[in-house]
């Protein structure tokens, strides 16, 4: 279990990680999601004690990384794909890593086989493709047979076959009861691999909840109606007591509306419809909405944002009341309280 408490990292005037607190639950795949520059890599480097926090702390099963005597046996990490000397062979790279943590030499050949690098084990890393470099990085993460594995953007630059391989690997590792913590800037990637989700934007925690919960909250559906008689349409909807929001091109959208019932309603009132279509928000949109908000708050955009669909936005804290802008304002300069739901 990885626990972060108010973890903060400041580079000069930039706050890269801002009082981040969350727990990576054991035995599942936790997706660590955020746009580029959100502070994911910095956070991961602080977990490994490579970067020293400006404030707060992070522990692995209750101990600081620096207190682990043979850390590769506890937590294996893939940071950058090519943290390898180009002139050293794949096998020698794994060998020095193994020796430093007293891992038996046969394990080196085992992990080489596991990631499919046995044929190039004695080739110098200089000639490795991005995918091979990534596999070598994963081999070094798995070397100590650790309970926790941490991958920073593992699918970056990989071909579809490599992406599928990594996905399956992560599921298998979690299936073996290991804790998997994987960062990505792609929601679609997380949707298929992660059980739990931690979202950050600009170094701040935006959401920490099970994937299923995220999907439930964000699979918002609506029915879009467009009519040449928009005023009449709105009157009819209001008369039927249906909540609606303005849509694009003068259309309007009824959240969680029933397609057939709305069509019949319009017909019974003689309203002409040019469009009657179901709308489904994708998880990607939900994620972008969530992180775009964090960016906007940094720009100092106060309450009163009227963008459709945001007041009840996925994971928007303080939704009851004036949307999360208001919550933020009321709280002075503090970041919006993050959405949080414990795994049970």
């Amino acid at each position: 279990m990885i626990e972060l408490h108010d973890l903060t990292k400041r580079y000069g005037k930039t706050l890269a990680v801002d009082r981040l607190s969350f727990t990576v639950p054991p035995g599942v795949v936790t997706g660590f999601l955020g746009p580029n520059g959100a502070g994911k890599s910095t956070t991961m480097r602080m977990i490994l004690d490579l970067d020293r926090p400006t404030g707060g702390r992070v522990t692995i099963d209750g101990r600081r990384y620096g207190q682990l005597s043979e850390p590769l046996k506890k937590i294996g990490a893939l940071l950058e794909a090519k943290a390898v000397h180009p002139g050293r062979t794949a096998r020698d790279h794994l060998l020095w890593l193994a020796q430093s943590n007293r891992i038996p030499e046969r394990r080196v050949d085992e992990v080489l086989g596991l990631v499919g690098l046995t044929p190039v084990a004695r080739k110098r890393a200089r000639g490795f493709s991005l995918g091979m470099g990534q596999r070598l990085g994963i081999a070094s993460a798995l070397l100590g047979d650790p309970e926790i594995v941490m991958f920073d953007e593992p699918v970056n630059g990989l071909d579809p076959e490599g992406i599928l391989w990594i996905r399956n690997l992560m599921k298998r590792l979690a299936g073996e009861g290991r804790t998997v913590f994987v960062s990505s800037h792609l929601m679609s990637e997380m949707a298929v691999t992660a059980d739990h989700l931690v979202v950050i934007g600009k170094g701040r925690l935006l959401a920490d909840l099970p994937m299923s919960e995220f999907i439930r909250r964000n699979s918002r559906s609506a029915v879009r109606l467009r009519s040449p008689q928009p005023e009449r349409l709105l009157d009819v909807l209001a008369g039927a007591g249906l909540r609606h929001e303005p849509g694009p091109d003068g259309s309007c959208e009824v959240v969680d509306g029933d397609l057939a019932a709305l069509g019949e309603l319009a017909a019974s009132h003689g309203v002409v419809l040019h469009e009657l279509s179901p709308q489904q928000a994708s998880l990607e949109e939900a994620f972008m909405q969530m992180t775009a908000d964090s960016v906007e708050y940094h720009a100092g955009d106060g309450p009163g944002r009227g963008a459709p669909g945001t007041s009840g936005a996925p994971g928007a804290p303080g939704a009851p009341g004036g949307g999360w802008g208001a919550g933020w304002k009321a709280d002075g300069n503090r970041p919006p309280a993050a959405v949080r739901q414990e795994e049970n």
Partner: protein
Amino acid sequence: MASFPAILRSEWTKIRSVRSTVWTLALAFVVTVGIGALLSLLTNNNFTEFRRHDQSPFDATGTAFSGIMLGELAIIVFGVLAIGNEYSSGMIRATLAAVPQRGTLLAGKTVVLGALALAVSLVTAFVTFFVGQALLGSHSTSLSEPNVLRAVLGAALYLTMICLFSAGVTAMLHNQTLALGVLVPFFFLLSPILSAVPKVKTLAHYFPDYAGSRMLLVYEQNGQPYGPWAGFTICLAWTVAALVGGALVLKSRDA
């Protein structure tokens, strides 16, 4: 805490598994022995001509070690690359993730680097000496003459300390290109030039290379500021300071 023998084994694997180790050390050996041999041969063949205006006693050991300045360049490069390639390749993160005890790690690196440099330097020094003496013919000296054995061992210690000093400076600068850009001009331009300038040379006499090279002297020279053992101590102090500085930077800095 990480096991120190494990760190040593790991660092040994690192150092033996890159080609630059073999190249730089082989170059240090070949250049030191080769240039020394060449100058010994030339001196022997033109002895009277070379020595016409020279009043001081002929230093056969020093002649054999004429190539040490260039051999030193190769061993500086070795020391810089052994530390610096971790930074240039980004491997330092893998290293520190495996061994988060940074001081212990640098100590392990220093032991492995120093042991290898010392072994190669000892072989280089003795081969250089014997080849040189063989080529000096009747003008040669032997290890049993006063101060000669000390000078030969001093040459090996000198090369080892310069190597470790360079390694420490690289750890401080955490960049191998920058380290080479600082060390090479320092040893090959700044230090020789300053030690020839009046007044400033008093300062230059306390630089690591001048101090360390005092260990190679067989005969007392006029105007020599201190003896071989003081030179050794000064050079050692520089080496320790560079390594401690490197450890402090490594410990405090984000990798």
